[in-house]
């Protein structure tokens, strides 16, 4: 175990996988000499050379397209898109190409690629650099979508993603890069599609991922002081979604809140709430609550930005709403 920052854990995963497998290479904008816009790839150019850490022109569509093509013929590309917002430029390559190729071509070929990008608020970066767009990707069969919240999972999931053999969207949160945590040394893998109980509790389940997990944990502390024991689940992967872990928890607590930084409409919260209703309608004591961003673009103003996205106070309030229902069952 070594204590390190989230970004260092990601770098360690990239380095170890590049050492393990000569087919693994990185491509993206400013990932080489500059070290990545958020310094994830810093030093890798010096270590592995320009054949394996490739600075590309500003061409998001073709960064992703080239990753798809290289993956089809023998490479193991890890592409970086600097901001998830820029994926709007590259959606054809991801959605119509990467996600469809294995199925559409009758299983003749795989697309073993990882698309790393980062999203979320916290830097007052404005409407075009702060969105949380995971729901765009979870809507597409053929993709896997990973959303780590902790440094150990950042490492374990990125290594697992590189080895998976399918197109994977790996969504980092810009507000987590400096987060410190214990990270296992050596070949540490976190299974894709497995959620984790981040905190045990009996009274209500808070379900989240990425930076939302930390908001949920903070809310759980507040709730504990009020005598409410919240269980907190870190989904870690959104597609495939580990519903078993979620259902097991909510079956016990009978109340749930889903928290995410993405806007509420069309977000994962709606999906999870629907699944919980289908599975546990008779068991639930309250409607599943959702806490997400309000349906507005994000302003380039850190103070105003905070008004839009969830915080622990809103999660606590939602939990109390869920707890206020009493239903004889």
């Amino acid at each position, binding site marked *: 175990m070594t204590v390190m920052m989230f970004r260092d854990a990601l770098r360690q995963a990239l380095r170890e996988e590049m050492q393990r497998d000569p087919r693994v290479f990185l491509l993206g904008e400013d990932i080489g000499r500059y070290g990545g816009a958020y310094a994830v790839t810093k030093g890798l150019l010096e270590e592995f050379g320009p054949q394996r850490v490739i600075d590309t022109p500003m061409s998001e569509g073709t960064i992703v397209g*080239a990753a798809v093509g290289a993956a089809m013929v023998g490479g193991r590309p890890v592409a970086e898109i600097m901001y998830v917002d820029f994926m709007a430029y590259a959606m054809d390559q991801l959605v119509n190409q990467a996600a469809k190729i294995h199925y559409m071509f009758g299983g*003749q070929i795989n697309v073993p690629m990882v698309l790393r990008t980062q999203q979320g608020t916290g830097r007052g970066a404005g409407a075009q650099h702060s969105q949380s767009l995971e729901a765009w990707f979870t809507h597409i069969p053929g993709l896997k979508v990973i959303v780590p919240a902790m440094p150990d999972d950042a490492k374990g999931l990125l290594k697992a993603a590189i080895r998976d053999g399918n197109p994977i969207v790996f969504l980092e949160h810009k507000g987590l890069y400096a987060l410190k945590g214990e990270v296992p040394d050596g070949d540490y893998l976190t299974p894709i599609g497995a959620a984790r109980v981040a905190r045990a509790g009996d009274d209500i389940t808070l379900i989240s991922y990425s930076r939302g997990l930390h908001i949920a944990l903070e809310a759980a502390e507040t709730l504990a002081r009020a005598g409410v024991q919240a269980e907190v689940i870190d989904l870690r992967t959104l597609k495939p979604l580990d519903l078993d872990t979620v259902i097991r928890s909510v079956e016990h607590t009978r109340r749930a809140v889903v928290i995410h930084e993405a806007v509420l409409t069309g977000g994962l919260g709606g999906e999870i709430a629907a699944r919980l209703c289908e599975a546990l309608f008779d068991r639930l004591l309250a409607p599943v609550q959702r806490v997400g961003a309000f349906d507005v673009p994000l302003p380039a103003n850190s103070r105003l930005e905070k008004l839009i996205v969830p915080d622990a106070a809103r999660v606590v309030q939602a939990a109390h709403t869920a707890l206020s229902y009493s239903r004889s069952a």
Partner: protein
Amino acid sequence: MNHEFAVQALRHMLRIRLFEERTLEVLMQGKLASTMCHVSIGQEAVAAGVCMAMQPQDYLTSTHRGHGHLIARGGDLGRMMAELMGKETGYCKGRGGSMHITDMALGHLGANGIVGGHIGIAVGAGLWSKLSANNAVTMCLFGDGAVTEGVFHEALNMAAVFRLPVVFVCENNQYAMSLPWSKSTPAVDFKTRAAAYAMPGIDVDGQDVAAVYQAAREAAERARRGDGPTLIGAHTYRFFGHSRGDPSAYRDPEEERRWRERDPIPLFKARALSAGWLSQDDMAALEADARQAMDDAVQFAEAAPPARDAVAFEDVYAPSGAHSAERERQHSTL
């Protein structure tokens, strides 16, 4: 140019023509599994010339109008027809249909239904060829409609700046669905366009299989020796509409007549005969062979049972970690 070349060129073009004529027939008989089907009749010389310039280890990316590309690359007519008829013995288990017909074992990286969507994939294949020094060239075929998509610019620029072994071939059939080339762009030649990427640009008569082959071969050699990509504009014509149910009302009948006079198959036959590359008997034998192959293909496809229902739900994901063995097997068969 010699007898061997002429046999291959005519063989490919006849097979493409007969396959597509037969495809239209079975389509009218209601035997195809999908309503989506685009034929390339009139454009056979481009497919044949480009694919003949390829080596076994090379890659190819193709379009929604891609039957000819796969046939000229050596695709099996029976498995192709089975794919169109939605049979599990088809190339894509009956799930891809005409627009996604593919044989990965031939280095064919897929017929693509998104106009221009595969140009970036070709750049990726070329990038991996450069990184892994696998000596493969990627032939990237696309239509004139793709030239005005944004990814075209990105992809050509990236291939040029990295000097990738990719040959970009625009199969300019003059119409992006209904829009004529002259209304798609004011820069109608490819030499000028290529100059923007500091790569060689060649405009070639797409009805002349020998000219297409020559241009493609030179470009492939340039790519293989590390001198980077080339942009070829092969000017040709789509004899039929965009798809079934398109009567091409937007085209001038006189224009159609002029192009039909330049049908690549009779043009090449006349040339091969006068140059002494082929005799009348050679040509009759090739024709008979292609007809037999086509009859066999339809028979193979019709005899196969329809795809199981389960095929609809399979292969959404590849088994985790199973990838490398599968791919290495594919590549070892090249």
